[in-house]
Each structure stands twice: as structure tokens, then as C-alpha cells.
């Protein structure tokens, strides 16, 4: 039997969305190769998560250990090395998330499995797989094949690339697998979680968000965008580089490592549309993008696009709306 194995991602007692996406894509691939889908679930006291996953796959491989209470690349590598060596799945699928980016590359190298990271497309092809990755910040897609011959392959999958689709339940069983971990010391140790300080702003409640990106070039031009936001009763938000450069506080940042927002209208100004940004705003009601580059990836998530120099168009829009509002 050919097995496709996904590694469930969870944090603080909750399964993360990417797990469901991996399940959907994994199930489709397992059907395409007439194989079966397994979910590897590592943790402490996670039987309720195993129950939630049970009917979504042919089996849940449950490894419980006090030492797995918090995610750690080293314990994950040890447990998954054993699991993959024993079960030899044809494909292991892991989220391309803060967690997956952390342990998948080392795990693949350790097992000498060929790895393709950050995949947005995966197809089964005889006894191998072909994938699609995005390069140059999402401006170009690359069709990629595995060069080394399997029999096992590994991919990390971009969060949000595959939707979760509800399917008829599978028989589902939970198989408890003894943990291979010992008290042998770890060179990396989890200490604690901390919330990043975000300051006063709360961009998640706004109906209209005006988000500014690196295209704004310097801090002195931020007030121009703020004026537009004020004129239209919107709140100022931004992409990550604007926070990195300290032009706006962390609380304004939209994206995977910032806030997820769903305003009625989201105006993206000088933002290219990297997936980490898009993940935080694609659920907005209506998206308007202003960018001087007609090929900017942001235009594929926006409903309305304006190809223009932001320094020219933003003041015009502001003045005109001021006038029309009178």
C-alpha cells in the first residue's frame, strides 16, 4: 500500500488551518495514486485532536510524550525520522509555516529525502511528483520536478494554497505509536511563548483599511496615505517592511506574522502581494490595489486594480473624494 503522510500542525491545543488544507490535498493525491492517507500527530494530551482528525484520513498515527508538549525541531526530527523510516510513505507533506520551515529542511536532509519547499501545486506522476513553486516574490511560477529518485519524497506546502474541502468520512483509526524519545539532552529547548507588543492600534475592527507597502519609499510619505485614510474614514495598515523600518508600529502589520483582517474594503498601496501579506488580507470584502507594476501579484487577489504611481494618484483620489463628499 502506498501511503501519503501529512504532519498535523497544532499549537496551544488547536489544530492550525494548514492541517486541514494538507488533509484535503493529501487525500486528493492519495486517491490519485490509489494509496492511503495518514496523519502524523505529535504532542502531549492531544487525543481530542486525534479524534477530530480521525475520519478525515485512513489513520491517525498518534505519538504522545510529555517531551512533545511544545513543538521542538529536535524532538520532531527524532520522532518523524523513526516514523518515516518505518512506514516509508511515498510522500510526506508538511506546512510551509513557521513550524514547517523550521523542521522540514533538516528532517529531509537527515533522511536524505528529496524536498521541495513552499509548493503551491503538487501532482502525482507515475512514481514521482511534480510541483509548482513561486519564485521572485510570487511574480513567476516554476514547474519543478524531483531529480533524485524516491521511493519517498517530501514537500512543504504553502498555507492557503489548497482549500479545505469536506469529503465523505474515511474509516479512520487512531494508532498509538510508542514515542522513541528518551531523556537524552536536547541542544534546543523551548522556554515560553510571548505576544509581540503591538501598541494601541487595532486594525482588525476597521471597515476600511488603507494599507501601505514598501513602495512608499520613506517615512516622510506616510502622512500622505494617512490623509487618504482619514478622508475616507479608514484606518492605516501596512506590509511588513514598513514595520521593519519602524515607519509604523507592529500593530499595523497585515499578514502571517501580523494581523489577519477582513475589512469591507482594503486598499493596498505600493504592496507587491507576497503570500505572507496576502494570507492576512485575502478575506477582505473588496480589495483595491494601487501599484505601478501591472504584473504585481497583488492584482490577482484584488477585485479592482489601478496601475499608477502612488505618489501621483493617491493625492488626486484624496482631493477628489473630499470634494465629492461635500
Amino acid at each position, binding site marked *: 500500500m502506498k501511503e501519503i503522510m501529512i504532519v498535523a500542525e497544532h499549537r496551544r491545543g488547536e489544530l492550525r488551518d494548514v492541517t486541514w488544507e494538507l488533509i484535503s490535498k493529501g487525500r486528493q493525491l492519495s486517491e490519485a495514486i490509489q494509496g492511503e492517507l495518514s496523519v502524523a500527530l505529535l504532542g502531549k494530551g492531544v487525543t481530542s485532536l486525534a479524534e477530530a482528525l480521525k475520519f478525515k484520513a485512513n489513520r491517525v498515527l498518534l505519538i504522545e510524550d510529555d517531551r512533545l508538549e511544545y513543538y521542538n525541531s529536535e524532538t520532531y526530527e527524532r520522532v518523524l525520522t523513526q516514523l518515516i523510516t518505518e512506514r516509508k510513505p511515498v510522500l510526506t507533506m508538511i506546512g510551509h509555516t513557521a513550524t514547517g520551515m*523550521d523542521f522540514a*529542511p533538516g528532517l529531509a536532509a537527515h533522511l536524505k529525502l528529496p524536498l521541495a519547499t513552499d509548493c503551491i501545486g503538487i501532482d502525482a506522476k507515475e512514481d514521482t511528483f511534480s510541483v509548482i513553486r513561486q519564485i521572485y516574490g510570487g511574480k*513567476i511560477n*516554476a514547474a519543478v520536478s524531483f531529480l533524485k529518485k524516491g521511493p519517498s519524497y517530501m514537500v512543504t506546502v504553502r498555507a492557503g494554497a489548497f482549500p479545505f474541502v469536506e469529503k465523505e468520512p474515511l474509516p479512520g483509526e487512531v494508532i498509538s505509536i510508542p514515542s522513541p524519545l528518551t531523556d537524552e539532552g536536547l541542544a534546543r529547548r523551548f522556554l515560553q511563548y510571548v505576544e509581540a507588543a503591538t501598541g494601541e492600534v487595532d486594525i482588525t475592527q476597521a471597515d*476600511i483599511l488603507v494599507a501601505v507597502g514598501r513602495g512608499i519609499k520613506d517615512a516622510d510619505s506616510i502622512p500622505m496615505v494617512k490623509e487618504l485614510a482619514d478622508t475616507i474614514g479608514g484606518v492605516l495598515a501596512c506590509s511588513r517592511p514598513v514595520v521593519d523600518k519602524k515607519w509604523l508600529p507592529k500593530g499595523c502589520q497585515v499578514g502571517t506574522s501580523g494581523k489577519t483582517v477582513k475589512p469591507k474594503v482594503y486598499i493596498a498601496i505600493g504592496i507587491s502581494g507576497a503570500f505572507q501579506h496576502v494570507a492576512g488580507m485575502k478575506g477582505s470584502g473588496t480589495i*483595491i490595489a494601487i501599484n505601478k507594476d501591472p504584473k504585481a501579484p497583488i492584482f490577482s487577489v484584488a477585485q479592482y486594480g489601478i496601475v499608477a504611481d502612488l505618489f501621483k494618484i493617491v493625492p488626486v483620489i484624496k482631493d*477628489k473624494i473630499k470634494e465629492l463628499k461635500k
Partner: protein
Amino acid sequence: MNIIVCIKRVPDTADADISIDKSGKDIDKSGLAFDLNEWDSYAIEEAILLKEKFGGTVTVYSLGGEDSNESLRKCLAMGADDAIRLSDPAFAGGDGYATARALAEALRQKPFDLILTGTQAEDDGFGQVGAVIAEMLSIPHVSIVNRIEVQEKKVKAHRELEGGLEEVVEVDLPALLTIQTGINEPRYVSIMGIRKVAKKEIKVLGLSDLNLKPEEVGLSGSDIQLENLFLPPVGEGAEMMEGKPEEIAQKVFEILKDKGGMA
């Protein structure tokens, strides 16, 4: 504290009009500006800050063609002590795994306490090279680091997770950290600064210096191979607003009233 930083020179494509070249496997790079990978500029700055605080050396490594000297020199101008370039025709076409392999072999020859890489490269975006180097050198790693506190023989690192959550972990030295943007403010390098290091020798290491076989590097040492490039399908795509700026403004006004409930 002896620190190694791995850096990559990449084309700046966010602001550029890029197209796929005739081979279908690469972009047309003529006319593109190149610079130090954004993540690496934070990694080198962090290394120099640590050196300023604790002493020791900073050595930068890059696998790439002669053009990469430009980015290595930028790092020297920022305050790195030495720069080493890995270059050999056999390295051509290597993916993240093959690149990490060659870098790991080079780093093995050099005593260090800490290796810093970027979280990802702007061009290929593998997000892979750092963690693979650590695996090959059998040292612990922490990825997506946005804060470092050095302690006796160990480092406390803040690792960025999703949604503003961070995880604090502790690793024994020697270790490898992949650095996230925003951890510091990379210093400005003046043309004068670059000029000062223009004559500094950049040592080149080839395959024969690295104890590797030709089949272990480059395309033959890679996991994956690029078949072809294509433009992302536009899907539904956006409705492009055209016309005079005033007409566009009028349209935006209507959308805001209609969909955004603007009063």
C-alpha cells in the same frame, strides 16, 4: 565570539518589470539591479552588532559567481572581517540542498560559535539553506529569529510564529540561526566605505578545496530541478481602472460608498 554569515546576491525584482528568457528556465536578468538579499542584510548587521558587543570575528560566505563579490564587499564595508566565495563550474544549477551542502563543507573548515543566515532568499524563496547547513554540521538551529540574547555558551532566541506570537527557545552553542527582517536596522554603507574595502582579498574556494565530489554539488547534487517558468495564471484577476486620475478617483469613491459603507 566568532560568527559566520552566509549571504546571497539577488536581483531586485519587486520593483522591476521581469520577463522569462528564451530558455524558459530563467528570467531575463539584463537591466536588473542586484543587491544583498534583504534577509541577509539583517543577518550581517546582527553579526556585527554581536561582534561590537562581545568581540571576535565575522566571516561572510557566499556561493556564487564573481558578481557576488559586490555583496561580499558590502558586508566587509559594514564591518565583517573576512569574505570567502565558493565558486566552481560544478556548482551550477544547484538547489537549496546542494547549496547548503557546499556551504556546510566550507564552514566545517572554520571554527565558529554562531552561524547566521537569512530566513529566506528573495529570489528562490526556498527557506531551506540555513536549517540544512545546521543538520549537516550536526549543530542545533533556530529559524525565523527576531531577537537574540547571548548567554554563557548558549543563546536565547525569539522565534517568530504566526499572528504576532513568538516562541522563546534556548540553544547551546555552536548553533545556527536564520534571521528575520526587522531584528535590527542594517547600517548604511557609503560609497566611501565600499571603496575602503575594494582592495581586500576575497578568498575563493572551489570543489577541490571542499572535500566533495562533483556529483554531490550543483544540479547533480540537487533534490529538485526546474522544468520551466511561467507567469502565474491571472485567474479572475482585477478589473483594471483606466482613465484620467479624476475618473479613477470617482470610481474609488463609488466603491467606498457602495462596498465600504463610507458616509
